[in-house]
């Protein structure tokens, strides 16, 4: 059962000479945690904008091809309708928060949908709890750290209880520890609540361990699409200059020198485990 299905998706920004998306065809299954990556300018941000309808409704220009997200055809539904099923968390935490208190920000989407107050309060409390920021309820966004702000953004999207949340480089402005915390939150949403996740990231060393599906784009096209271990192992991924985790690089180098590990490690823990098995001979 796919939660995202596209066929031959093509898009050019108005006034642009180059196509930003070229014949993109992919499918993401319900409940999956998929990573979308690729060199700068490959079209991943453009693709994210298509998933919730910003393209074609907010950005002009013609979106060719089919795109169905959570059973809704993007061309035929408004962004408002899509928002109930697809959430989008952006790169810059500061520019996603409008209100003067965290609580009000989390309620923003629900207020827009005209939800009755009691129901809203319950949802807001739930979203704050799920993202671990209940103690920040009354704080103003400007007082928060980048990591906290990003969790507020996630809570505000979560409050609308979408089936799928798309994260567009959510940790760009955060330090590695802050980034890790965000990935943990996202992983919990995926595992505990069954929300499908699409994570656009460059920092694969921190994020790869959570993904079951990796998609790599380049110049508007999908060039690799499959399981993390296969993708990180492929020649093309290396040539593209994608941020392959160091653990994988080590695996590669060891293989070239005759040391075979059980599999391709996607995290440092896995690498340690595989190495132990190979080197511990007693």
């Amino acid at each position, binding site marked *: 059962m796919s939660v995202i299905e596209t066929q031959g998706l093509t898009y050019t920004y108005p006034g642009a000479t180059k196509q930003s998306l070229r014949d993109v065809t992919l499918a993401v299954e319900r409940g999956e945690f998929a990573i979308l990556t690729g*060199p700068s300018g490959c079209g991943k941000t453009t693709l994210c904008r298509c998933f919730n309808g910003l393209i074609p409704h907010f950005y002009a220009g013609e979106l060719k091809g089919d795109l169905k997200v959570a059973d809704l055809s993007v061309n035929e539904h408004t962004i408002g309708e899509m928002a109930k099923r697809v959430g989008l968390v952006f790169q810059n935490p500061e520019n996603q928060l409008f209100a003067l208190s965290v609580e009000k920000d989390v309620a923003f989407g629900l207020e827009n949908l005209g939800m009755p107050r009691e129901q809203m309060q319950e949802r807001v409390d739930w979203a704050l709890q799920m993202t671990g920021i209940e103690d920040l309820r009354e704080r103003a966004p400007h007082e928060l750290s980048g990591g906290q702000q990003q969790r507020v953004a996630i809570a505000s999207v979560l409050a609308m209880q979408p089936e799928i949340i798309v994260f567009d480089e959510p940790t760009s402005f955060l*330090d590695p520890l802050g980034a890790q915390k965000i990935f943990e939150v996202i992983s919990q949403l995926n595992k505990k609540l069954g929300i499908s996740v699409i994570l656009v990231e460059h920092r694969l060393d921190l994020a790869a361990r959570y993904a079951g599906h990796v998609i790599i784009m380049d110049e508007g096209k999908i060039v690799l699409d499959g399981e993390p271990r296969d993708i990180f192992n492929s020649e093309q991924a290396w040539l593209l200059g994608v*941020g392959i985790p160091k653990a994988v690089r080590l695996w590669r180098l060891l293989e070239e020198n005759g040391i075979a590990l059980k599999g391709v490690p996607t995290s440092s823990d896995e690498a340690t485990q595989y190495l132990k098995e190979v080197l511990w001979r007693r």
Partner: protein
Amino acid sequence: MATIEAKDIHFTYRTGVEALKGVSLTIKDGEFVAIMGQNGAGKTTLVKNFNGLLRPTKGEVNVDGISTKDVSVAKLARTVGFVFQNPDHQLFSETVEEEIAFALRNFGFDEAKVEKRVTWALNLLDLTEYRKTSPFMLSGGERKRVALASVLAWDPKVVILDEPTIGQDHRQKENLRQFIVQLNEQGKTVVIVTHDVEFVAECSPRVVLMREGKIIADGAAKRILTDTTLALEASIVPPQITQIFHGLTFLGLPSDVIDVSEAKKILVEHFRGSRR
């Protein structure tokens, strides 16, 4: 010879936040230093004291033996170049050429010299084709290069880069790394402020680790980034290679590994050795 010397400096912002609580640091000519630590540890505050943007509320900073309190920012900037994190906070000119010439004209270079230096900087950062382009038309990565070019144009002895790797993809980071290493090899003093451990592991500079306004460690990257106690204290995530090796110490393998190639060498040797 450019030496930056911070003598037990304290800095408190007007809002009352005490960002530096007694920092002493000496950076010698030609060094390559990475100032690391969590967001909010005081890294940017510290480096802003090096070019006079901030002046310590207590203590003194000397650049080339002269206290920053006695010199204007403009004068210090001639020696200490500062590349800010977000290039969009600098770009305002109609062409890339004008943008690069801006600082040169501020410093009083004559037009002939300006022309030469602009051409040189464009070439250095591979931007010659964009000479007459508006900087706003360029991509994010290109704008970062314009910002860098506009600072290197006046050939400062020291170059400070504040979080240069944010938002960059792997290839861009690799290019940046090579560029920075090259700058340093040419004799420039390079100071980078960053929380990107993997990047620092690849560059292997001197690392100054900060936490809550103080320096808690200062030494070779290899030693600092592999110390688990320090990592915990400073709330930094060690490089992946280090994490892997920390789980293998019981095999008698060294724990201070940060580089992939070195890791491979050690493991291959151990593997071959244990087969005998």
